[in-house]
């Protein structure tokens, strides 16, 4: 598909992960992991269950503080940052087990992703009205942005539907929509296609590639479905038992003997 289309140019390194180690007591979740992500590329992290993929994402995201190593994002190096700081730097994420507000409508859920970009204070919000005051004006502007996302993800028919009533595949789309509402420079997707049927996976693949193509968003994704990973990513990192065992283009990774044995067991 468009992963090799001529219009996209992969840029400089935007995220550099150097020698990251993460331990929970005696459990070594990640050991000395290093890799980089270039601007505008789709980078996948794969590995068997418990390999440390989500932990890796959580380190980048500021949820976990790694004991060793450093992460450089757009020239800023940090050992640890809190999630809000990371979000303010332009990193958004979606979750493996959806973390949406089930009782709220699709629009409101996506609107919550605009939170960081709202500037009016409590007082202005309390005095909101359509004639003067910044709150109403600001909300209209944000709603317009949210409508572009609704259009982009083709969820117009469910604007006002409470998210909890939507099928799983659509909830995943809303989750992606909320992340996009932050206008991120980089998007972390934790198993965006888990639990989907073939058609939903195709739709989601198309949306991910479209996000990458239309907005130039750099994408880091964790995925189990090897077919999908090989189709949509530019480069793949392979983890196993918290260690990096492979790194390269899908073709290189597929030919890597260590990767094959991690996936199919020794002896192959």
């Amino acid at each position, binding site marked *: 598909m468009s992963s090799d*289309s*001529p219009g996209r140019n992969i840029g400089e390194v935007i995220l550099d992960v150097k020698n990251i180690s993460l331990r929970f007591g005696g459990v070594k979740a990640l050991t000395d992991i290093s890799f980089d992500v270039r601007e505008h590329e789709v980078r996948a992290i794969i590995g068997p269950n418990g390999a440390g993929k989500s932990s890796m994402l959580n380190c980048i995201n500021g949820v976990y503080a790694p004991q060793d190593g450093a992460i450089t994002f757009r020239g800023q190096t940090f050992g640890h940052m809190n999630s809000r700081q990371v979000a303010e730097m332009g990193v958004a994420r979606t979750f493996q087990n959806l973390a949406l507000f089930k009782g709220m409508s699709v629009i409101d859920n996506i609107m919550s992703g605009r939170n960081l970009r709202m500037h009016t204070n409590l007082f202005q919000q309390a005095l909101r009205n359509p004639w003067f005051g910044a709150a109403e004006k600001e909300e209209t502007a944000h709603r*317009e942005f949210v409508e572009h996302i609704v*259009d982009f993800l083709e969820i*117009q*028919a469910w604007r006002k539907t409470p998210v909890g009533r939507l099928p799983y595949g659509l909830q995943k789309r809303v989750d992606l929509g909320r992340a996009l509402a932050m206008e991120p420079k980089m998007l972390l997707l934790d198993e965006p296609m888990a639990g989907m049927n*073939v*058609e939903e996976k195709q739709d989601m693949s198309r949306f991910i590639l*479209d996000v990458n193509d*239309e907005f130039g968003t750099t994408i880091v994704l964790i995925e189990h479905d090897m077919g999908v990973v090989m189709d949509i990513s530019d480069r793949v990192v392979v983890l196993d038992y918290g260690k990096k065992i492979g790194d390269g283009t899908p073709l290189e990774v597929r030919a890597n003997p260590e990767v094959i044995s991690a996936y199919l067991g020794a002896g192959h």
Partner: protein
Amino acid sequence: MPSTFPRLMLDHAAQRPQAAALREKVYGIWQTTTWAELALLVRRLACGLHAAGLQRDDHVIVVGENRPRLYACMLAVQSLGAVPVPLYQDAAAPEYAFPINNAEVGWAIVEDQEQVDKMLELRAGPCAGSPTLARIWYDDPRGLRNYAEPGLEALDALVAAGQAHDASNARLFDAEVALCQPGDVAALFFTSGTTGNPKGVVHTHATLLDRARAGQAFDQLTEHEEVLAYMPLAWIGQNIFSYAQWLACGYVVNCPESPATVTIDLKEIGPTYYFAPPRIFEGLLTSVMIRMEDAGRFKRWLFKTFMGLAKRVGPTLMDQQPVGLLPRLAYALGDLCVYGPLRNSLGFSRVRVAYTAGEAIGPDLFTFYRSIGINLKQLYGSTETAVFVCLQPDNQARADTVGIPISGVEIKVAENGEILVRSPGLLKGYYKNPAATAEVLSADGWYRTGDAGFLDASGHLKIIDRAKDVGRLHDPQGGAFDGAMFAPKYVENKLKFFPYIKEAVAFGDQRVKVCAFVNIDFEAVGNWAERRNLAYAGYTDLAAKAEVLELIRDCVEQVNANLAADALLAGSQISRFLVLHKELDADDGEMTRTRKVKRGAINDKYQVLVEALYGGQSEQFIETAVKFEDGRSGSVSATLKIVDAKTYSAVKAAA
């Protein structure tokens, strides 16, 4: 006063420049295009096409959902004396090959990436070689930024080119429009065709406008009507309602946001003039009934009570017949509590005139809508007649007829029972197919509709079936029904009127008895099963459940009882049937895009099943290839039980 579509558009723009012509919901808000804006857009598009080298009589295909700019493109093409050819947007690429090659289509104007991909596939494959599809324009640029195909351009670029061309040739557009004559070809419609290749039906500005105006006069349509356009433009029904009549009357056409939002958009717009095939009305009713069954006990009671009243009083009120004071008051109360809110939630609060056509509509369904105060009527027509042949007057709507011939129409019934029509709205001919044209169009202007039927005592037309499908039963033993008339569609429609049955195919011509295939309605039967705690794993599993077969048998036997009362068609009672393991689908070549069963194709494909029906087996194994929507194919297999149904002896009419 014969005119042309571009001229009508310019007249509206001159007389009511600021009035709304089109609306489209974009980013959640309805955006209006006024007649003046439309005229400017059409002017630029036409100049752009002219600059690109479009010649008079060239064919340009238009493929997409109802989008204001695609409407403008059709007008722009017609302004230059060229011919727009709308095609069904949900067809797979190979299905376009015949129309494109047959009509020597040089250019395409399409909606989005999906359609562009199909056009590029055609250009590389089945339509390669000739100058076909040399240029392709698209409305929505999403996902197309990196396409570097020759001749592929955004509509914006065409508009910009047109603006520049217009600046240097200011007289061009008006001169081109003035050249168009009412007798010129206005559009080419490819009929889906239940057999063989599609045929291109040629209509002129005059034929389409004559019928559009006849319909306008019949229902006193004004420029204040609101219409929601969501059926394919390639279907003449939609084309007449949201294009020909739109330009004739000057009302507002509203384009839904996406196919999934139609019910929401319907509610927001509240159209005053509405047109849909019966299955849309059926879908709406089914969704209401399902929601009603989930409602609380009091609401269910209220609904049931007032619907019972509506059934008795509503249709009489609609037909403007006298009704006693008490029921009238009770109906008014029902209107306040149930009918009004129901109409509102269906989006029919403002409907003044609603039509259904294309297929027969079930009497219960028809009565339901009339009883809650919606002026639903039937009409009769086809692509070849530019739709309007017979329409039902407001107070004479009946479920089993299709109305009276309207102004300009003459009707006669041929000896074989086939209906012949003569009107100023008849097709000019089939494109490049004089043989087919001669077959349907006689020298003195009569068009053979291919439908069997008759005019009843009150002058209403009643359709029985396709004339070529009407067969005879043949019993070598010379039983009671030897040589009796067999009208498959008549029987199938009676079956389909049950909410549990989605499709049916009846066999019986030259056979001893009538047998049938039945397709269950997954939604309705699924809901029925859930209510009975009947577990099922999917369509195939549900269709094979003994309880479901029992349910369908009950329906079949009711149909038989009903048929037995009809002296002509008592022989058409169904003695054996089976429930198919998969839904009949256009993608598998079993139905047309307008969802009409392809009798011949089904007969060939399911030959073993037909033989099993007549061979007396109690079950039969079948494996069928299916095509999924994403283009992959697979197969479904099942062992189908064959069920015997009770038939009744013919009730002799009291003579």
